[in-house]
């Protein structure tokens, strides 16, 4: 039987609000079956603020305290107009009011940011919204890595790995690493890909993109970046 099927206005509730057990004995009384359907309280009573502290102390999240919740970020957001759950204003608010439960529920949504920086450019309070959202995402990544969509996680890690290793991004290498991280390596060898590879080999782009080299003294910069991250 579907969860909470005995509830009359079932459509008003989400699955995670309903507690239902196949077998339950309370105080020696067997209340197995539909009689033990219970709802969790909607009232929030325990603000958890360690995430706020972590984010406001991070380099990219420091401007979070400037926010006055005017909503300019979400109003202009490229993603919010496609995915209504993606709401930068709300993410910031949840952090500052200690709503880790809501953040974790949306752990996968927050990574939909495309990095267009419209939010940052429009913000009347000079919140670097795009990077604050990134900072919240990083906190979620550390806290509940399992909640992240696997493809997003692989994409994220590919970029990081490439950047820290080479100091530059190369599209073929990114694509190759991403596909292999997501177990889709065979897609590198489709006829379409082969044609593209031949073309790039002929006009010299392969050499240019695969052997772009590293910035001067990259290892020192990388060390700094890795240190910052830790």
């Amino acid at each position, binding site marked *: 039987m579907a969860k909470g099927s005995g509830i009359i206005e079932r459509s008003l509730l989400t699955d995670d609000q309903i507690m239902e057990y196949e077998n339950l004995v309370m105080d020696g009384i067997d209340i197995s079956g539909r009689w033990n359907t219970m709802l969790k309280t909607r*009232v929030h009573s325990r*603000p958890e603020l360690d995430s706020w502290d972590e984010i406001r102390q991070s380099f990219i999240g420091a401007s979070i*305290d400037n926010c*006055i919740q005017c909503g300019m970020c979400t109003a202009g957001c490229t993603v919010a107009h496609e995915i209504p759950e993606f709401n930068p204003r709300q993410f910031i608010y949840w952090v500052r*009011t200690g709503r880790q439960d809501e953040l974790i529920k949306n752990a996968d949504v927050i990574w939909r940011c495309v990095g267009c920086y419209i939010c940052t450019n429009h913000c009347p309070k000079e919140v670097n919204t795009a990077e604050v959202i990134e900072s919240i995402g990083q906190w979620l990544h550390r806290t509940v890595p399992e909640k992240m969509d696997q493809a997003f996680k692989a994409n994220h890690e590919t970029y990081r790995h490439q950047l820290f290793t080479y100091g530059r991004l190369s599209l073929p290498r990114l694509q190759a690493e991403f596909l292999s991280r997501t177990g889709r390596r065979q897609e590198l060898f489709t006829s379409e890909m082969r044609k593209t590879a031949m073309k790039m080999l002929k006009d010299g782009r392969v050499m240019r993109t695969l052997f772009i080299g590293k910035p001067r003294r990259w290892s020192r910069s990388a060390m700094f970046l890795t240190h910052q991250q830790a």
Partner: protein
Amino acid sequence: MSTSVMVIGAGPAGLQAASTLSHLGFDVTLVEQQDYLGGAVARHQYQVLMPDFSSGPELLSRLIERVDNDSHITVYTGTQVEEVSESHDIFTIKLSGANQKTLQSQAVVLATGFDHFNPARDGKYGYGLFPDVITGAELEEMFAKGPIRRPSNGEIPQSVAFIYCVGSRDRQVGNTYCSRVCCAVSAKQAIELREQLPKARISMFYMDVRTYGLWEDTLYWRSQEEAGVVYVKGRIAEVTEQHGRPVLKGEDTLVRGPFEWPFDLVVLAAGMEPSGGTREMADKFQVSLESHGFIKQAGAIHNASLTDHPGVFVAGAASGPKAIEDSISEGDVASLAVFEYLKAKVTL
């Protein structure tokens, strides 16, 4: 015979009016029902003033000194206006209390100020029931007396909530107006609190933040950017107590969700109401009140101090909620209006 003007109420507006009227050449009688001068600033011992964080005691000593050292100003404290009669544009005023006299004045400035809304009238906040629920004025008194502690047990508060619009913008309590300064005063208090409580969680529960004009960035933004104060949009419907801490029940209207959050200390930003003295003097001097019970400004665009009774002028919060700086300016505005009014009648 010199021309004599009576100023009633010795808060910032009345003190300023008395001093300016004297500079303009009038003989001034300053009547104050309390035993002290300074009005609300003195009553609640405001130490740090909104908006510029200047010193309250310094302001008072400057205003009071000017009045005290002026031979054309007679100050009657602990004195009430008992009876007023008027004939040929001259007021005959009978005083009672510490100075039982009958005086004549050609003009009167009412600077009778405001009272804070008493939150006990609105049961939902638990004021008077829970010791850790205090008013903003009581917080000012705490700042004056020493470090901030929870009234219930003397501990350092780890979390402080401010509830906005207590007794303002609420038909249930009969006050449909905005008290104008409480948003900015609360932001100022939060900034001050942060100095004492570097680790505490400070939350403001508001329906709008009305730090109008130049106070937007200097107080509202500053409280967030420098003091890490969090603004939660939503009204508090009930304050209860659990494990010895006030619990705020409300709805977070920005993200749609009910909450019940405990705090160590709750500060009610209680609004302003016309003071008892304002109502009484309006009655005795026969000036009209506007719909909220403040003294009606008869020609606010022409001059803020005009009432609908010639010869009676108003200054400060008696005509509506006002910041200290505006009250002081209105002391001057009223003096000028008195000057223009009497200039037409007598040769100075």
